């Protein structure tokens, strides 16, 4: 059957010819699109190397996308003088990593119980989790802001506003992550549990030693899907934290908007935020090669 198919495909030269013309057309469209998606970001990076006057001057020509003229890292050093950049960066990294790691543990444990254990009320819990999937965080943000301000803090005071915890603890439990884990765990053969039980393993051992090691792809998916939103948090830290030293890196961009605007510095700060994320994003592919 396949032999016949490849034979047919071979003896139809006109189709080949058309597809060659198409190939070139396709490349042209793709290259134009590279410009559409890539040039604004290139412009951002190139402008971060220029003084403000030159950024405006270069706008009228293709020089806007080429690092020529008065090129320096002055904007970058100005950024470091103006805001505690590394502090902001550290905060963002710690907050996102905590959200992702604690999220993987908490959500996979919950999903494990739902997928592999038998107890009453399981379907109700699963139903509630699925129902909360369609509630966007934005609907809860303002009541949540009021609510965290009433919660007891571990040192005995009242109110979580303006703390480190308020920025990640509310985002650990994640319905989407539980659902993804649940689906994956459900597809792992249950006979493994029975076999392990016969060998005297506890449920926790089965979770830790059997199911989790088999769930690499699910863990990777959840990690990626929870990292990006955690890194990109903006609305919540903007409202819940005032202290400068607790702020994540994206909220830090606001400082440059408020004081006398220097676009070169804004572009430098924006590049500093963007480059590491691009590297992290390309890392799996690079390692793969």
């Amino acid at each position, binding site marked *: 059957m396949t032999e016949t*198919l490849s034979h*047919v*495909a071979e003896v139809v030269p006109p*189709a080949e010819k058309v597809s060659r013309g198409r190939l070139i057309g*396709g*490349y042209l469209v*793709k290259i134009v699109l*590279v410009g*559409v*998606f890539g040039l*604004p*970001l290139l*412009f951002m990076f190139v402008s971060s190397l220029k003084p403000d006057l030159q950024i*405006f001057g270069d706008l009228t020509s293709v020089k*806007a996308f080429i690092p020529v003229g008065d090129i320096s890292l002055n904007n970058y050093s100005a950024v470091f003088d103006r805001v505690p950049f590394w502090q902001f960066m550290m905060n963002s990294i710690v907050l996102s990593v905590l959200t992702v790691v604690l999220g993987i*543990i*908490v959500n996979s*444990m*919950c999903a494990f*119980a739902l997928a592999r254990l*038998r*107890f009453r009320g399981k379907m109700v819990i699963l139903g*509630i989790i699925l129902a*909360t999937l*369609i*509630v*966007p*965080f*934005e*609907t*809860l*943000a*303002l*009541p*949540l*802001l*009021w*609510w965290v301000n009433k919660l007891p803090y571990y040192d005995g005071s009242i109110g979580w506003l303006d703390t480190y915890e308020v920025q990640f*603890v*509310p985002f650990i*439990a994640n*319905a989407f992550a539980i659902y993804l884990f649940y689906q994956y765990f459900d597809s792992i*053969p249950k006979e493994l549990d029975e*076999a392990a039980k016969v060998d005297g393993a506890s449920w*926790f051992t089965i*979770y830790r030693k059997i199911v989790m090691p088999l769930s690499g792809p699910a863990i990777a998916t959840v990690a990626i899907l929870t990292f990006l939103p955690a890194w*990109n948090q*903006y*609305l919540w830290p903007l*409202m819940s934290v005032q202290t400068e030293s607790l702020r994540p890196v*994206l909220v830090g961009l606001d400082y440059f908007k408020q004081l006398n605007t220097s*676009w070169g510095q*804004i*572009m430098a700060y*924006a590049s500093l*935020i*963007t480059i590491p*994320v*691009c590297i992290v994003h390309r890392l799996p*592919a690079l390692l793969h090669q």
Partner: protein
Amino acid sequence: MTQTIGAAHPNPPTVPTIENITRKQRRFEKPQRSQRITAAWLIAPAAVLGITFVLIPIALTFALAFTNAKLVSPQGPQFVGIDNFTRLFGDPVFWKSLRNTVLFAIFVVPIQAGLALALALLINVKVKGVNFFRTVYFLPVVTSMVVISMLWLFMYRQDGLINQLLAQLGITGPDWLGNPTTALASILFMSVWQGVGFHMVIWLSGLQTISQDMYEASAIDGATNWQQFRYITWPALRQTRTFILVTITISAFSLFTQVQVMTQGGPLDSTSTLVFLAVRAGYQQQQTGYAAAISLIFFLLVLSVSLVQRYLTRDKDVKK
């Protein structure tokens, strides 16, 4: 199931024995308390966090909407009936924000989903450099919306990059974000530019599940490209389509970051949205009760649209 057990066992027991054992085990397991207790322990952390930070806030959205709760106040919230809603419905900015939110969603959903599908089809070929193109189209997705908004704020200026580019073509561009007629459309264009790569990847994963044999078989039968798309690709993407529809809709309704960074709702409230309005009321003006009322309306809007979408996709299920 029986096969797996049999294969692992040194002297495979007969099928009836296994069924007896499992049935016996099941009967034994059902009242087993240890499993229930283990489950409770495993679920407890997620349950505590979920109840505290999701379920209670959902309940609070409903409850606080009927009170005069303030973000920081020595007094507790007092019940005020539907005062917040009468105030809200009498506020022209609310109606404008509702209109902007709905308009934004109506345009973003088909444009972004359609362009993403076009990109996915364009990329779903085995030619050299496809990975490079895919990466570049995905770059705006990886870049934070705050950064994108800041960058485009500069590009959209009256004397910014876009207008300078248009000037080369002899067109005088408007003050994109300063003009009430173009501001929302400008934010929309930028949002599609940022998000389209993400949905391209999702369409792509759907496309790659379609067997190549179907295309080959239909090519032999003389199907045109359009026919192949219409009768093979499109029906096979049904599940992907539903997912993309729902995710774009919810994120379109939640429009906030772009507005906050670029326009602050202006000019003349032409870019104000429900979430932006709620944040202004609940955070800047500290009127949690009023903000909860706005959030509640927003919640009902998202809920009803989701239900309608679910109904529409289910309807097609039955027909199939």
